[in-house]
Each structure stands twice: as structure tokens, then as C-alpha cells.
């Protein structure tokens, strides 16, 4: 690590992003975002499709050039010290990018060689396959795996070089609910082992369950950044939904008793539920996440 980069981030900050922007012609995909991700946390980027989530991950992992702005990954500048910055990152992209006709082991072995790891580190591949529950499928071709297994394999591959931070771009998209929960458990396990996790998602329950802090993203801008509980409790604990003029209107209350009291005065049908991140997003942007 060179001295000037060490000045840019403190030891606790694994990612520091300053005024990062990306334009595609006239489209502003990311408009100058600022945020920090701290060691050991799960940081979620929550926003609708096209809000700039994937663009951010692609810039930070070297797949896309930013139009302007700076970012440091574990103290290394993402562009000026790109190779060092990449060594800090494990990347699990949204689309499956495994070699389908090669074996599970081969996919991890290629990754090991790409990161220039010693031959002793080959043993880590089997440990990782065991970690993600795929050791028995070690010699199967990727084509023979289910969707959930492929996701787990991608997580294992991203961890071969023991990254400081794991980037997960929509890690459970397209998976059924049971397998989604398996992936969540794996992500929690990764965090418990000391790896910082940066994930993007448009699933509210995923962000609520996994994230220590959340950045709400809308049209390339971060509209809120806080702990999920803080974001939600700013509105109250309970919500009442009712249909008014063909639109669902929500009201928020600090306690269930307050919500119930209000509901008694209502003429239309209603439902009472706990406040969630969708409510926070709706309040800040005036629109729903999905």
C-alpha cells in the first residue's frame, strides 16, 4: 500500500467512495455518490432496477470506467492502483459467469491461478467447496448444477483468494424462496468469518434480514443511508394500508394500539402491518421499489 492511499481511508473503512459518477451518453446512471463501508459489515444497496446499483459495483470492481469521482478499496485507489484494489475484492456478478463445460473444481482452480496464488492454496479450494456444501459435486460439470448450487459456487470462487470485501450483485435473483434463505445463511456465515459484504438487491426482505446498513438508491442518487431499523422507525413501528380512490394509502403509527385505534375510525377495508423499508423508500422518493 502506498502512502498517499493510506491517507485517504482509515483502517476501519474498507470502501470509501467520493463523488462517483457515470454517464452513458445523456443518461446519468450514477450522479456523484458518496459513501463508506466499514470492516465486517454487510452494506446493502437497495433500489429499483436501473437505479445505478450494478453500475456502482462494476465501477468498484474494475469492470466499468467511472466518468468522474474517486473510490478506494481497502486503501487502494480503484483506478490508479487497479490491480491491488482488485486483489481485495471477491466479485459475484448478477449473471452466472461460470465455465459451464468445466468442472466445479476447474472453475475455482482457474480463479486461483488468475490471482497468482501458490500451489499450497489448492487445498483451500476443497475447504471452500465444503464451506458452501459442494464438495461432493467437486468433479461435476457446472452444467449439472442447479441454480442455487451455481450461486453458491460463485460465492466460493469469489472467496478463493481470501478477499477483504465480497461484492454480491443481486445474489438471490431468480432463486426460489427456500434456496434464497440458504444463500442468506451463507452470506451471514461469510460475514461471521470477518469478510465485509457489499450487496445490491431490490428485495426488501433481503436487505432487512442481511444488512447492517442500507443505502437507498434512486435514479443514480443515494436518497438515504442508515441502519434499516433507524430508517423504518423514523416512520413509526406500524402501518395501516387502505385503498382510497384505487390507490393504496399508508399511514404510520408508533404503536400497534395507536394503529388499532385509528383503524376503528376507518370506513374502508384496511390491513395493519409492520413498517418496512418499502415504506421508507416510498416516503423519500414518492414511488415503490418494485
Amino acid at each position, binding site marked *: 500500500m502506498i502512502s498517499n492511499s493510506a491517507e485517504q481511508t482509515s483502517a476501519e473503512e474498507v470502501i470509501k467512495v467520493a463523488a462517483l459518477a457515470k454517464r452513458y451518453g445523456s443518461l446519468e446512471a450514477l450522479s456523484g455518490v458518496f459513501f463508506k463501508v466499514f470492516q465486517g459489515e454487510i452494506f446493502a444497496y437497495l433500489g429499483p432496477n436501473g437505479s445505478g446499483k450494478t453500475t456502482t459495483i*462494476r465501477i468498484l*470492481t*474494475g*469492470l*466499468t*470506467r467511472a466518468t468522474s469521482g474517486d473510490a478506494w478499496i481497502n486503501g487502494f485507489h480503484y483506478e490508479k492502483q*487497479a*490491480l*491491488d484494489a*482488485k*486483489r481485495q*475484492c471477491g*466479485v459475484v*456478478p448478477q*449473471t*452466472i*459467469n*461460470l*465455465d*459451464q*463445460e*468445466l468442472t466445479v473444481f*476447474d472453475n475455482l482452480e*482457474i*480463479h486461483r*491461478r*488468475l*490471482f*497468482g496464488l501458490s500451489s499450497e492454496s489448492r487445498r483451500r479450494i476443497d475447504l471452500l467447496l465444503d464451506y458452501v456444501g459442494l464438495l461432493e459435486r467437486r468433479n461435476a460439470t457446472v452444467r449439472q448444477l442447479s441454480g442455487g448450487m451455481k450461486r453458491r459456487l460463485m460465492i466460493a470462487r469469489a472467496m478463493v483468494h481470501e478477499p477483504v470485501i465480497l461484492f454480491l450483485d443481486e445474489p438471490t435473483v431468480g432463486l426460489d424462496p427456500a434456496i434464497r434463505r440458504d444463500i442468506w445463511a451463507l452470506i451471514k456465515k461469510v460475514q461471521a468469518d470477518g469478510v465485509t459484504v457489499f450487496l445490491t438487491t431490490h428485495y426488501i426482505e433481503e436487505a432487512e434480514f442481511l444488512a447492517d446498513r442500507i443505502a437507498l438508491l434512486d435514479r443514480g442518487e443515494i436518497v438515504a443511508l442508515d441502519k434499516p431499523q433507524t430508517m423504518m422507525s423514523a416512520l413509526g413501528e406500524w402501518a395501516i394500508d387502505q385503498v382510497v380512490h384505487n390507490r393504496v394509502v399508508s399511514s404510520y403509527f408508533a404503536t400497534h394500539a395507536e394503529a388499532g385505534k385509528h383503524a376503528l375510525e376507518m370506513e374502508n377495508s384496511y390491513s395493519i402491518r409492520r413498517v418496512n423499508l418499502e415504506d421508507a423508500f416510498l416516503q423519500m422518493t414518492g414511488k415503490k421499489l418494485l
Partner: protein
Amino acid sequence: MIKGWYAVYYREMLIVRRRLPQMVPSMAVSPLLYMMAFGYAMGDQKIVEGHRYLEFLLPGLIAMSSMVQAFAIASEINISRFYWNIFEEFQAAPISRTAYALGEVLAGVTRAHLSVLIIIVMGLPFGVCLAYYNPLFWLGTILNSFVFSAMAVALAMVVKSHAEQGMLINFFITPMAFLGGTFFPLDNLPIWIRKPLEFLPLTHASNAIRASAFGQNPGYLPYVVLAVTGIVCFLVALNMVGRARD
């Protein structure tokens, strides 16, 4: 600067190993047809430049086939870019664009030499056994496949679909395969056709490979032309790999 090239090369070789049972017959089909059609059907005892036509043809087939197989690395790269998104795994890895390009180019060179070996073996039952021990023969095949493999890596970064890839082969590789001195001596052509063809890298490769396979010294010119073309194509490939990031 080139650290990591072997990982890229290793991946391509794993794929070659897995596909070998299909690749070997597929690499053998075209040369076999050419040997039967142009060799036997056109008259086995026909003498061209002092040699049996089959003997004249085989080095040309080696030059052509090594060009085609080296260029085929472009299809592999496109499949990994557009269908499997594996190119992103390389982009996210801490390797330079030189390492990536070198790994892919050398994979193309290796595939090309697989086809060279197949043609050499296929020539034996036809009674064609040339001076393959001549190092200049192998220098010619290596430089020829390096040129077209580097060209393939560069073009693979530019094309946006398989259809565009097909167009490049139709407009560039196929005409060169037929007009690069593979099937007939260029001396028989009118000068206005011959002169432009003399600038093609495959023409120089055919000349070098054929002369050295006959135990003659082809001179330094074809090797210089191929080496310079190879270096230029490789530099263009490096530039294109760098631009492949959006």
C-alpha cells in the same frame, strides 16, 4: 506485466482437453476433403513447382488450417463474452491486459498447432512426408498462427455479436484462405491480382512453410513480414482489450 497469462491459457487448454474428441475429427475434415478433391481428383501425378501436387498442397493446407484455427480463438472469446460472461471474471482479476491478450493468443497458437499435427499425420497415408524436422518450418507455423491469433483477439473485442464475427470470416479469412498461395502458385495469376496478394500475411506464411517443408531456405523476408505483422496485431489487441471496458 504478463503475470497471470498462464491462468488465461490454462482455461483455454482445459476447454480444448474437454472438447478434444470432437475437435480432432472436425479439424481433420476440411484438409481431408481438400486433399481428396484437389489432390486426387485434380490428378495426383500433376507436377507443380517441381513437386507432386499433393506435396505442394500439404504445406499450403498447413498454413491455411493454422490460420483458421488460430483465428477461431475469436469465436471462443465471443462465446465467453456474450453467452457466459466469463470475460468479466478476467476483467475483475488482478491481471494486466497484456497478460490476458498473451494467454488468449498463445491458446490460439496451440490450437493452430493441433491442426498442423493432424494434417502432418493425415499426409502420411497419402505418401506425403516433408522436412518437418526443419526449424524454419515450425518458425513459419508459429509466426503465422501468432499473427492470426492476435488479429482474432483484437477483432473479438470489437465485434458485438456472432453475426459480425461470421461476416469477418466471410470477407477476410475465407478469401485469404483461397488466395494466399495455399492451393496454387501465385505466379500463375495476372500481375494485377498477384501484386496485392503478395501483401497478405498468409501468402508469406505459405511461402515460408512450403519452402522450409521442402528443405529449402525461404529467406528472411516472410519471417520479418510475419513477425512485424504479429507485433502490430498484438499491440492492436492490447489496445482493444483495454477499450473493452464500458
